[in-house]
């Protein structure tokens, strides 16, 4: 340890965030009485430049070799104060934070109790820091390859940004083509430019980019390693079509006798059992859907094989598992749309002409199943259409959050309906939320196009008429909260603006990449405001709707931010790794190898010669599970040693 500990204690007021509840003067005075404390000071914002200067100067002038900062959570400013220590010439690990804001002043009402608790936390930190040891920060090279999971607009945008800097990107997409939800959309608000027109050029760029290896129809199976050095196993599912031979002529699709509902058309149209999801697909190579293909079900047909002129059909193809090494991983797995069937009263799947917003996108799309004609199930043109907002969003029974895009696309629908038909349009909204650039203006514009706005949540959509006028119509029943009365409105078509929700496999994805999810089920960012693209696992970034509902501009912005983060790591070229790793005292080790069974990273090996276990520090992540499992107390965890923790426990009882 070297010289005797000389501890400096710094109490932050955080404006009134701490000082409003905790008596900071009393706390500072209390700190002065603790063992080995040379100096204790309080300051209004310890994290500010002058605050940092106070600490730095004390380290230099008073020869401090330990620092305790009583302030906000260590997740906020531990790194800031470590840097202060380092710049002032002491090892950054000789610092301890007492979290007297998030875990004291903000959660305690009584001032005396808060002050007492803060004293206990501070005393614990002082006792702990006494035993801190300087640790060496180790650096390892950062692999410049990147894995991006998800080929929607977020994944595409990020892949291009990174690849354009001439760094390799592996883009993994679960479906047969990239494009994501955006390629299914018709026009995009508020500019009304065609979604496919702005996206397909980017898709083809991805498909032909020399620095992008596109793996469509593939899934990530296993992830190991750590920031800078991940190893990822990817399963390339068998397409039963030889990608090298296929020339994308489309003859196989044409001849395939089996028709099934198309996922791309949201069930509004059909596809074949061998198919590319849509004509502009990237890659333009069909896949055989083994769930429906007659050959896979009944053992005969193989018509596609017969007609294929380049012999690309290969029924013997098998899944292939490839392993890639990457430095960073970006998740852009997107969202899925809420299925409104459980909301029985809205009649989805029960009543004809009640459709979801995604189904309407396909209906109104000129490349869609009706070539863009808005028609009812019987082929006639609707005379009146109701658009129901917040279906599954802002609803405590389903999703509490706002899906953020529905108000805007509902306005877009009104415009498209008005453009293509003479139908009356009724918007049933709770609140109009038009928050983005040009959005309010778009709202104003559509309001002027003769659209009816009814403020109220729809209670029921029914076909039970009670008057002549309602016969054969869908009747939308709602309370108009501005009029304060119930209204029944007969319409021909009802569009349900369904919520964006986490992908059904989000839990498995979070587990696979070792990251957390927030209460709404989306992936959890490191900090909701200051670090929305990072996660709690270093080197794993998130972008787009897998983090929460957002519109296209926000998705693209987040993807670019995540790409910039990756490029920053690549350009630095190396990465600091955990210094707080386990160490084994070979003299105490009995060689029972229990620790190596506990270790999830295979970081502990057995040295036959010394008959003792040994930790590979590059693999150890510092969880400490082996430490508390060691029968001989031969293992300790740096920075979380038994000595430090026991001293901290002791300190809290002051």
């Amino acid at each position, binding site marked *: 340890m070297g010289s005797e500990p000389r501890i400096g204690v710094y109490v932050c007021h955080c404006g009134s965030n701490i000082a409003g509840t905790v008596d900071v003067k009393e706390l500072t005075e209390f700190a002065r009485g603790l063992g080995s404390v040379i100096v204790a000071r309080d300051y209004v914002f310890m994290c500010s430049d002058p605050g940092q200067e106070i600490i730095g100067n004390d380290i230099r002038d008073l020869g401090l070799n330990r620092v305790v900062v009583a302030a906000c959570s260590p997740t906020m400013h531990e790194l800031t104060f470590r840097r202060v220590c380092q710049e002032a010439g002491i090892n950054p690990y000789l610092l301890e934070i007492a979290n007297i804001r998030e875990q*004291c002043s903000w959660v305690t009402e009584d001032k005396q109790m808060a002050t007492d608790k803060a004293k206990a936390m501070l005393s614990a930190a002082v006792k702990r820091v006494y035993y801190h040891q300087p640790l060496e920060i180790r650096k390892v090279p950062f692999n410049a390859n990147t894995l991006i999971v998800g080929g929607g607009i977020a994944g595409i945008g990020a892949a291009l940004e990174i690849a354009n800097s001439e760094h390799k990107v592996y883009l993994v997409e679960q479906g047969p083509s990239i494009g994501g939800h955006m390629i299914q959309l018709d026009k995009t608000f508020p500019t009304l430019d065609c979604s496919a027109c702005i996206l397909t050029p980017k898709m083809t760029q991805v498909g032909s980019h020399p620095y992008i290896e596109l793996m469509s129809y593939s899934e990530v199976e296993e992830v190991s390693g750590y920031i800078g050095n991940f190893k990822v196993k990817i399963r390339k599912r068998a397409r039963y079509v030889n990608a090298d031979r296929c020339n994308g002529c489309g003859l196989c699709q044409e001849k395939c006798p089996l028709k099934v509902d198309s996922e791309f058309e949201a069930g509004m149209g059909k596809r074949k059992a061998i198919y590319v999801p849509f004509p502009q697909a990237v890659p333009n190579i069909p896949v055989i859907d083994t769930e429906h293909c007659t050959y896979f079900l009944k053992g005969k047909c193989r018509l596609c094989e017969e007609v294929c002129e380049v012999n690309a059909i290969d029924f013997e193809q098998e899944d292939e598992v490839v392993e890639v090494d990457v430095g960073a991983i970006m998740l852009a797995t997107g969202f899925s749309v809420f299925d409104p069937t459980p909301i029985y009263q809205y009649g989805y799947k029960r009543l004809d002409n009640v459709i979801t917003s995604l189904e309407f996108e396909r209906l109104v799309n000129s490349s869609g199943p009706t070539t863009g004609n808005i028609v009812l199930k019987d082929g006639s043109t609707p005379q009146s259409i109701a658009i129901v907002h917040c279906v599954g969003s802002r609803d405590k029974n389903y999703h509490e959050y706002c899906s953020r895009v529905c108000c805007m696309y509902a306005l877009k629908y009104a415009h498209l309906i008005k453009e293509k038909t003479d139908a009356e349009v009724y918007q049933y909204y709770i609140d109009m939320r038009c928050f983005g650039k040009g959005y309010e203006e778009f709202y104003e514009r559509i309001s002027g196009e003769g659209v009816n706005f009814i403020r109220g949540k729809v209670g029921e959509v029914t076909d039970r008429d009670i008057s002549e006028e309602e016969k054969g119509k869908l009747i939308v029943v709602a309370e108009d909260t501005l009029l304060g009365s119930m209204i029944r409105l007969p319409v021909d078509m009802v569009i349900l603006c369904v919520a964006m929700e986490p992908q059904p496999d989000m839990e498995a994805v979070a587990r696979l990449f070792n990251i957390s999810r927030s209460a709404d089920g989306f992936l959890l960012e490191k900090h909701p405001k200051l670090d929305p693209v990072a996660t709690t696992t270093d080197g794993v970034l998130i972008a787009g709707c897998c983090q929460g509902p957002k519109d296209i501009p926000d998705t693209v912005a987040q993807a670019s931010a995540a790409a910039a983060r990756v490029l920053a790591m690549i350009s630095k070229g190396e990465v600091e790794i955990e210094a707080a790793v386990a160490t084994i005292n070979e003299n105490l080790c009995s060689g029972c190898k229990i620790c190596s069974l506990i270790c999830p990273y295979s970081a502990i090996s057995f040295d036959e010669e010394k008959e003792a276990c040994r930790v590979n520090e590059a693999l150890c992540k510092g969880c400490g599970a082996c430490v508390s499992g060691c029968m001989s107390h031969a293992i300790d965890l740096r920075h979380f040693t038994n000595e430090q923790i026991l001293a901290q426990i002791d300190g809290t*009882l002051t």
Partner: protein
Amino acid sequence: MEQVTLSANMNKEDSTWEPKLLGFLCRWCSYAGADLAGTSRKKYPANIRVIRVPCSGRVDPLFILKALRLGFDGVLVSGCHPGDCHYQSGNYFARRRMAITKKFLEYMGINPKRVQVSWVSASEGAKFAEIVTEITQELKEIGPNRVFNDERQGNGTEATE
């Protein structure tokens, strides 16, 4: 010196007695959850003292015994939900170790309810506040931990409860 005062207070057993709770929180889930309770200004009893550990798997049963011996009335061990461990399997080890520790405490004549294990994710700030409130209330019902009381006062004899 401080500890003697504490024990003396406990002996009074008056209405002002407040249980002392020690919490071991893993830094990835539960500590972040506790931070979130603060960010969302959820109020909970000030009886808890938190020790940040990298993983609930780091919590040595020795720490629990040490805490009870020093005069804590209860200990909370909290980590990521099973299956969500940042280190893949640390919380499973914690779960088994704590189950055995509780058995051992019972054998020693200590109410095993003094040691509680719960899983709190980084998004469960409200749950953390609820758990601390509940455990504090429960400890008030169980009463002060006096098992090592005499030993702390230097009498050398031990009581059970």
